[in-house]
């Protein structure tokens, strides 16, 4: 059930070491936030998982398959440039099905069959647009959509291929606050669907890793927060995971009560963002231990 496994990954540009010995295991159905000081290598890590910047050391596996380049197993949503201008919303979402399930010669030479398949693709695309509450915008071009709508389409576009993991690089960074809240709630709804799937013994569909610079957003949306920074005892070797803990789970209908997050936010500030607080990098890396402990407690009760 591991969607993503990162083992001993290090990366450097010339003489500068950016990432040092990163180890990470992400299970299907987790929504993970990555935070860290600017320039700590969050983007480099995302590019390594995406496969555009192969790592210098270590291995990254998506669903057990080593990542050697961008592929349909790892989805991506950027902050900008998220959609193709020349396609309508539904065509943008259907693009993955078209590229993944058919080939150029098929589309050129077997066009009656392609025509039929195309209809089915568009139907599936509209189903995904429904999931992100955009069924009414199917025929519109990106230039006619607001920033928030574009990001919704981009998420549907990436999700339609059911990637093992979906990477989001500051996906809501350019949006106004109200839109951003709507999209956060949408992610919380996906998480609830994950929980339902798990309870019914199915594999949860939405596994996400998103980079954000807002700690509230990280703690509110995610069920697990990872901090990346070079403020630890081996910091001269590069940034590594210095924080990895579960965080409170909000339901979409819960009030946005951030006072619940204050304590952990303080802890994050300390562990990830404070250059003077130097510690062993594993001091706050306890996600899997805490999960195991919780499971043991459940059993004991």
């Amino acid at each position, binding site marked *: 059930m591991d969607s993503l496994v990162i083992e001993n990954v290090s990366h450097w540009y010339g003489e500068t070491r950016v990432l040092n010995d990163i180890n990470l295991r992400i299970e299907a159905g987790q929504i993970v936030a990555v935070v860290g000081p600017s320039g700590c290598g969050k983007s480099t890590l995302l590019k390594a998982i*995406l496969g*555009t910047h192969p790592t210098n050391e270590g291995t990254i596996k998506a669903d057990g398959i080593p990542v050697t*380049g*961008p*592929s*349909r197993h*790892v*989805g*991506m949503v*950027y902050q*900008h*440039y*998220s959609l*193709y*201008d*020349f*396609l309508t919303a539904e065509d943008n979402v259907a*693009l*993955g099905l*078209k*590229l*993944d*399930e058919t*080939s*150029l010669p098929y589309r050129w030479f077997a066009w009656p069959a392609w025509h039929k398949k195309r209809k089915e693709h568009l139907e599936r695309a509209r189903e995904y647009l429904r999931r992100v509450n955009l069924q009414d915008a199917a025929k519109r*071009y*990106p*230039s006619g959509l607001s920033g928030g709508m574009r990001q919704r389409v981009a998420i549907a*576009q*990436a999700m339609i*291929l059911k*990637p093992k993991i979906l990477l989001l690089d500051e996906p809501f960074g350019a949006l106004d606050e109200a839109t951003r809240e709507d999209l956060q709630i949408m992610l919380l709804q996906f998480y609830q669907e994950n929980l339902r799937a798990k309870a019914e013994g199915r594999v949860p569909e939405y596994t996400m890793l998103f980079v954000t610079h807002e700690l509230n957003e990280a703690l509110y949306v995610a069920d697990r927060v990872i901090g990346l920074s070079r403020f630890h005892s081996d910091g001269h070797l590069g940034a590594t995971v210095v924080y990895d803990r579960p965080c409170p789970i909000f339901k979409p209908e819960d009030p946005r009560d951030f006072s619940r997050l204050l304590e952990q936010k303080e802890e994050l500030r300390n562990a990830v963002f404070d250059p003077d607080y130097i510690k062993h990098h594993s001091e706050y890396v306890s996600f899997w231990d805490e999960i195991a402990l919780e499971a043991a407690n459940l059993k004991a009760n």
Partner: protein
Amino acid sequence: MVRSPIPPWLMIVLSIGGLVVALGVYGILSARQTAINETQSVLPGIKGMGEGFTKIRAPQGTESNPKPSWLWQDTKASVTRLFAGTAIGVVASIVIGILMGSYRWIEAPLAPIISFMAKIPPTAMLPLYMIAFGTSTNLFIAMVALGIFFSMAQSVFQATRQDVTQEAIQKAYTLGASDMEIIFEIIWPQIMPRILENIRLQIGPAMVFLIAAEVLFADVGFGYRIRMESRLLRMNTVYWYLALLGGFGLLLDWLMLKLRQYLAPWFQG
């Protein structure tokens, strides 16, 4: 104030007014010239222009060997050359430009040659083309095709590099695209309206190259007829040809604009 709007009716009145004034000035000059010399053909009046029109439409040749009118002969020759040349130049520059923008190992050997050639004024290359292609139809086609090829290949290359972001390409790979699909499904639709815009802008230069070559080497065509007739100061035919060239250019321009709006409704500048 700069750019302050004017009412639409004034806009229309002024644009008609401009045309009327231009024609009026011509009329006055023409009448004065006729007063000095009744047989003048430099600034022909309405009557002279009418004669010119009849002349360019009159059938040529002898009774045993009839030939179509000048207008028909010249239009056929020039339009064929222009379209064949433009088509070859455009297709070649699209293929080369996209390949250069997609593969560094194609860009590396070609980019220096193309940027050098694009700096040579195409009409200066005419003697070279004459040696290579003779003075048959091929010369005019080659002149137009090569005249627009180098600068257009550069713009297609630039468009491929700049209009298609790295993110757009990487994202397509995450959606399961192959290399060929990146070119045909991502790069091509993204830059297509930019290319149509480029073709539209190249129609002007293409006509310049064609007329220049025809003036020098042709025995039929717009450039040839204009040269022959202006030698004899028969401006009543020359002016008709110039007006036709202007109208033809405007028409092509408009058609390309409509084509772009139809094929890429999403495109904005």
